[in-house]
C-alpha cells in the first residue's frame, strides 16, 4: 500500500495532491532557506497563524453572498489578505514602536489566531457552518479533496516554485550580504518584501495540505537540515528545496493511504526525520563526524604524550596510551620501547625542544601561538627557520 502510494498509484486526486505537495515542499524549502539566512525564520510563524481570521471571514462573506462558502480559491484569497495584515502589524509594531520583533511576532500570532478562533465559533452558529470543515485548515487534510482543489494546489505549488526560481539571484545576494546587494543596485527592502510575499504564498497554498499551525515547519526544518551539509549559501537553498520536496512527497503520499491521519503532521515528521538523519550523519557538521574527530584528536594526544614519556625514560602506565603505542609498534607488550618507538620518541622530543627555542626566539616567538602540543614544527616553520632552530639546539641526542 505504501509502495503504491509512493509510486502515485492511488488515483488521480491523490497523485495531484502529492505532486502539489512536492512542488510546494521544494518552494517552501528554498524560500525558508532565504528566510533562515536572513535570520527571520519565525516571522513565518506569525504569517501562518494570521491566516485564520481571513479564512473564517472569507467563509462568512461567501455564505452571506449566498454561496456555499467552501470555494478554496475564495478561502485562499481571504487568508492571504489577513496574512498580509498580520505581516503589516509585525513590521509596524517592531519599526514604529519599541516593541521588539520577537514580541511583535508572538503578539500577532496569538491575537490573530485568537480572533480567528472567535470567528470559528461564530461560524459554528450560522447555517452551513458546521459542514464548513474549516478545522481541516488547522492541521491540514487531503482526505476527500475535490478535484478542482487538488488542481489549485498543484498549480499553486508550481507557481510558487517558479517565482522562487525567478527571484533566486537577488534573494541569494540579499540573504548572503545585504550591503553588497545594495552596491549592486538591488533594493534590499523590496527584495525582503518579495521574500515575505513568497512566504505568504507558501502559507496560503499549503493551508489545505499542511494546515496553518505546522506550515512554518516546511519553511524552517529543510533549511536547518541543509545547513548541516554545506557552508555555501546557494547550496543551502538547493538542498533545502530538495529536502522540502522529499518531505512533501513522502508525507503527502503516506497520508493518502491513511485517510484518518492529518497530512500536516506526517509531512512535518518526515521532514524532521530527514533533519535528524542529517544531524547524525552529515560529514563535518554531523554528530558522528564530530565524535570521530574527537576520537582522532584524543588518539593524537595520547600517542604524543606517551612518546614524550618514553623519550624521557619514564614508564607509561595509562592503559589507552599503552594500547595505542603497541598498536603503532612503538612499544613491546612488556612496556619496553621498540627501535621504531625510540626513533619516534626522539623525533617528538626534538620537536618539543624546537618549540621551546621558537618561544624564546626574538623573531620567531610570534609563531609560537601555533603550538597546540600536537602540531609538528615542520608544519609551521620553513626549512631555513628549522635549520636555524636546530643550530641553536645542537646535535640531536639519541634516546
Amino acid at each position, binding site marked *: 500500500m505504501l509502495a503504491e502510494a509512493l509510486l502515485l498509484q492511488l488515483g488521480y486526486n491523490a497523485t495531484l495532491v502529492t505532486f502539489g505537495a512536492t512542488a510546494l515542499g521544494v518552494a517552501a524549502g528554498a524560500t525558508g532557506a532565504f528566510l*533562515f539566512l536572513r*535570520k527571520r*525564520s*519565525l516571522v513565518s*510563524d506569525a504569517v501562518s497563524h494570521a491566516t485564520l481570521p481571513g479564512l473564517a471571514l472569507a467563509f462568512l462573506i461567501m455564505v452571506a453572498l449566498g454561496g456555499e462558502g467552501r470555494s478554496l480559491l475564495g478561502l485562499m484569497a481571504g487568508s492571504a489578505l489577513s496574512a498580509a495584515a498580520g505581516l503589516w502589524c509585525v513590521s509596524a*509594531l517592531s519599526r*514604529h*514602536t*519599541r*516593541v*521588539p520583533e*520577537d*514580541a*511583535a*511576532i*508572538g*503578539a500577532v*500570532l*496569538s*491575537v*490573530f*489566531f*485568537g*480572533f*480567528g*478562533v*472567535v470567528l*470559528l*465559533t*461564530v461560524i*459554528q*452558529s450560522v447555517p452551513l457552518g458546521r459542514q464548513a470543515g474549516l*478545522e481541516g485548515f*488547522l*492541521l491540514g487534510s487531503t482526505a476527500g479533496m475535490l478535484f478542482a482543489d487538488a488542481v489549485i494546489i498543484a498549480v499553486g505549488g508550481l507557481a510558487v516554485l517558479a517565482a522562487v526560481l525567478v527571484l533566486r539571484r537577488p534573494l541569494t545576494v540579499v540573504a548572503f550580504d545585504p550591503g553588497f546587494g545594495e552596491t549592486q543596485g538591488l533594493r534590499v527592502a523590496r527584495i525582503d518584501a518579495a521574500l515575505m510575499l513568497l512566504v505568504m504564498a507558501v502559507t496560503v497554498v499549503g493551508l489545505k495540505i499542511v494546515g496553518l*499551525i*505546522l506550515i*512554518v*515547519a516546511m519553511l*524552517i*526544518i529543510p*533549511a*536547518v537540515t541543509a*545547513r*548541516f551539509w554545506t557552508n555555501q549559501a546557494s547550496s543551502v537553498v538547493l538542498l533545502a528545496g530538495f529536502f522540502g520536496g522529499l518531505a512533501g512527497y513522502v508525507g503527502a503520499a503516506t497520508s493518502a493511504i491513511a485517510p*484518518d*491521519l*492529518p497530512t*500536516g*503532521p*506526517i509531512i*512535518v*515528521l518526515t*521532514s*524532521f526525520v530527514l*533533519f535528524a538523519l542529517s*544531524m547524525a550523519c552529515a560529514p563535518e*557538521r554531523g*554528530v558522528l563526524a*564530530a565524535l570521530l574527530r574527537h576520537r582522532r584528536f584524543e588518539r593524537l594526544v595520547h600517542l604524543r604524550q606517551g612518546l614524550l614519556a618514553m623519550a624521557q625514560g619514564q614508564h607509561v602506565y595509562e592503559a589507552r596510551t599503552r594500547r595505542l603505542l603497541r598498536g603503532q609498534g612503538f612499544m613491546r607488550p612488556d612496556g619496553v620501547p621498540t627501535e621504531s618507538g625510540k626513533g619516534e620518541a626522539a623525533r617528538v622530543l626534538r620537536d618539543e625542544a624546537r618549540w621551546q627555542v621558537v618561544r624564546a626566539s626574538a623573531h620567531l616567538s610570534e609563531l609560537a601561538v601555533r603550538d597546540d602540543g600536537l602540531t609538528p614544527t615542520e608544519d609551521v616553520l620553513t626549512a631555513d627557520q628549522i635549520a636555524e632552530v636546530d643550530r641553536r639546539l645542537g646535535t640531536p641526542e639519541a634516546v
Partner: protein
Amino acid sequence: MGAEFVALSLPPILIGTLAALACALPGNFLVLRRQSLVGDAISHVVLPGIVVAFLVTGQVSAWPMMLGAAAAAVVSVALIEGIRRLGRVDAGAAMGVTFTAMFAFGVLLLEQSDTSGVHLDVEHALYGNLESLIWLDAVGWSSLLDPAALSGLPHELERMAIVFVLTLAFVVVLWRPLVLSTFDEGYARSLGLPVATLGLGLVIVAAITAVAAFDAVGSIIVIAMFICPPAAARLMTNQLVHQVLWSLVFAAISAVLGYVLAGYGPLWIGLPNTVSAAGMIATVSGLILAICAVAGPQRRA
C-alpha cells in the same frame, strides 16, 4: 442573574484572570530579554507530553499530565540547545524545528490513539475550555461564604491561584537580581549574580505557568498573555515597576472584558450563541496592545 452569574461565569472569569496575571508577570522579563517566543514554544511542545501521560495512565488527570508536560518541556530545551550548538544555527530556527516537530508528534499520537471517550483533542489544547469550568454547587453570592459549596469550586481555580502566588513570589523575591541580569548581564555577572541560573529559573517559572494555564485555558491565552500585556505596558512607562503593574492591569482587563464579551456580547447584538472566550481574551489583549502602540506615552523606540 446573580445565582447564574456566580455559578457559570464567576469561576471562569477568576480562572482566566489568574491565568492571565500569572503569565503576564514572567512575561515582562521575557519580553525585555527578547525571549517572547518561549511561551509559544512551550505551549506547542507540551502537547506530546500530555498525550503520552494520558496514554500511560489512561485517564485525564492533572498531575500525570503536568509531569508529562514538564518532561516534554525538558526534552525540548535539550533538543533546542543541541540543535543550536551542533548545527550552529540561530536560536529561532532551532526553536522552530523543535516545537513544530514535537507538536506534530503530539497531534499524530492523539489521532492514532483512542481518545474519543475523554476530553482530549487538539482543539481543546489550543482553545482550552474556559466555559466548562463551572461551579455547580453555587446558588448565589452567599455560596462564597459556604464552605461546603466552596469545596465544589473547579480545581483549576485552586491550581491557577497557587501558580499565580508562585510567580508573584519568584518575581518579588528575586526582583533585584532579575532586573539587573535583564538590563545589564555583564554588570550582574560582575556582581557575582548567577546569571545563567536566573535565566534558567525564569524559563522554568514560565514553563510551569504555561503548563498549568494550558490545561485550564488553552495555549492561545497563554501565548497572548505572556506577550501582549507586557508589550503594551512597555509602551506606557519607562519604569519597570510601573510596567509590571500596568501589565497586570492590562492582563486583568483582557481576561474579564474578554470573557464578558464572549459570553454576553453576542446576546447584546442579538446572536443566539456565545463565542470562544479564550479567543476573545486574546483579541482584547491585542486591542489593548494596538491602542498603546498608537497612543502609549512611551511608544517610540
